[in-house]
């Protein structure tokens, strides 16, 4: 075995941060691809002289706008957790993470309300299939985000306050989800 001189102990390399950046990239591509197909199908349908949104179906705008505003809160609270973690303030970190989870639950609730208001079956038409597919993808991201927040909060509650990287990675996740929802909000709820 060749004996190359041993190097210094490798410094922490922000593995969780880079990993979450990759995850963010994947989320943006997933949402971007699905929105692109949505727009293509919409254009094709309208060009054929058909209506895109089925008759009798109304797209509720108020809960969608509330979701968008709530995402501002999610991002602020996630960043608050990062800020507190940097200062070794466990109480504020856990509190900020808790509020992040609650606000995320609010968004999930608003999405459920939209489903209830629209009252359409998934098998009723292409629009319905695509609406449930794209909002279902978004709900999946929300559930993963809530689990991520819970894990982060448990780690801090358990005393692993030195692990600030996971809090920053958690914030990156929520920023990305907020960006994804902003695009989805514009395409699905504003442009329709």
């Amino acid at each position, binding site marked *: 075995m*060749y004996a*190359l001189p041993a190097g*210094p102990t490798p410094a922490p*390399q922000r*593995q969780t941060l880079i*990993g979450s950046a*990759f995850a963010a990239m994947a989320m943006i591509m997933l*949402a971007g*691809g699905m929105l692109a197909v949505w727009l293509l199908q919409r254009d094709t349908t309208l060009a054929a002289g058909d209506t895109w949104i089925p008759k009798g179906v109304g797209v509720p705008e108020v809960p969608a706008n509330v979701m968008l505003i709530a995402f501002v809160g999610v991002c602020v609270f996630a960043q608050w957790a990062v800020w507190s973690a940097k200062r070794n303030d466990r109480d504020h970190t856990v509190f900020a993470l808790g509020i992040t989870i609650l606000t995320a639950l609010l968004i999930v609730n608003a999405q459920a309300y939209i489903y209830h208001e629209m009252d359409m079956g998934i098998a009723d038409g292409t629009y319905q*299939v695509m609406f449930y597919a794209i909002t279902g993808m978004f709900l999946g991201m929300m559930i993963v985000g809530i689990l991520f927040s819970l894990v982060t909060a448990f780690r801090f509650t358990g005393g692993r306050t030195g692990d600030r990287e996971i809090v920053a990675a958690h914030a990156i996740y929520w920023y990305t989800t907020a960006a994804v929802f902003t695009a989805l909000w514009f395409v699905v709820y504003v442009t329709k």
Partner: protein
Amino acid sequence: MTTIETAEPAPAESDDHASGSGTDARPHHRTVEVQPPKWLSSTDHKIIGQLFLIGGLLGLLATVAVNVIIGIERVDGSDVTFDNSISQMFDAQRVGLVFGAALPLALALCIALVPLQLGARAIAFPRLASIGFWLWFGGLVLNIVALASDGGTLGESADMVDLFIASLGLMAVGAVAAAMSIGTTVLTTRAPGMTMRRVPFFSWSALITSIALVLVMPVFTGTLVYLFLDHRNGRTGFGGNAGFATWAGWLFTQPATYIFAIPAIGVFAELLPANFRKRTPARGVMIFGLALVGVAALGGVTQQNVARLPWSGSELNLDHFGNKFDDLVPFTAFNVLPLLGMFVVLLMALVLIKPEKGVRPNITGALPFALFGTGMIAVGMAGTVLYAIDDLALQGTVFEEGILVYVVYGAALAIMGGVVWWAPKLWGFAPATAKVVPIALLGVLAIVLATFPQYIAGFLDQPAGWVYTNDDLSIWNILVLVGHGLMALTVLAFIGLLAGARRSRDRDEAIGDDPWDAQTLEWTTTSPAPGDNFVDVPLVHSAEPLLDLKASINTAANSASRDGSPA
């Protein structure tokens, strides 16, 4: 760990019984600890890589077998034995080539070797890499079940069509998980002193592939979600079964498939300086070439089956300004740029193989594999450029199938070269060069026969599918069949080569840590590499750290001999 309690009957005759002291008639209970095999849940990147490799080689073999069956069907161009399952055969061919062979083989080498090349003790997120393998493997098994049960793009069993789509999604998610692990490894676990410019070429290709997979596979998965829900709910908004090819077929065509070939080109780039015993000048140029091939990832993002070039008569048909951007830009970006990247790599190869005074190349058996494999990928890329030119009327012919087989078989051949090269680090043995080279030659002959006649048949207007009316085409299809048969032999011979070398390892003497006189970090550790790769994390001062060390040893020995003192 599972604990099983076993009951053993008490001995019928015992000394106690004989002496009349009475006997315990109750059965004796013994606890047996049953542990699952270590490889099942291993987080050692070398084992995960080997799992991908075994899966990839078996997947390649199965796909070659499917190609042989399709080849038999095509020989006379009319009678079809598997009339009711021919669409499943073509689905199995496409899915097998891309998800069954090219993807796992590429990931296998990346996962197994990248941490070793970087001087890392482990891969980043090892459980994610392991989950990636099992998702891919589960998806592949479900895909085979779906195709065998009348699923697939034109299948008649609705449930099996759904399973077919879902299984592809599983494999795609598995690929993303593995890619995230590889990409994070390259970016975060490099040895001290190893800047990005000093990262070995193969690891660079792994990084490019992982980024490309993270960009492309989610787009594919999102489309599959639409297709699945649409089909599951009996809708036809995406064209029903047949809509699969329209909406998701792009991943099985060029340039998206180049993504899986990038590590193969990386193997070639890695072997060149080591075999020709030179330091690579202008490393950035080689990395640029590899990255240019990665531009193919954009082909996936735009979800285009083919970026067409409007060619009218003898000149480019630019009727109005819009055409220039609508047609010429995508054509250049997705078809020409990857080929340009390949030319850059080949140009650097010419620089490295140029004879130099006092330098004696050390050509190993791995190089012919990598050279021929990369050459085949290049011919496939050149074919893609021709295929996109509308006036050649190649679209809808078997020409496209020829391109796909060129790229995937070529990538597989180069990856085999990588396996031969790094076998000492994975298993502690090195296949004999005299046995390796004939297999590489057989492989390149197989690929040329399996693909080039399809290029010719494409120009002769043989339609894609299995039926054709022109009897003159028969000879080309016979050659294709022979080619696939030889490819099956190549894969079998390669598996036999590894098995034989493994058997002989026990009786031969140790292979040594650096059997190829190589340049990079993985050759500083023992063969095979231990569980945590390196005792000490090595310090790196250049892109060829092992050459630095050998040079310093030589210098010390020379000065010692001049001084007359022991070296």
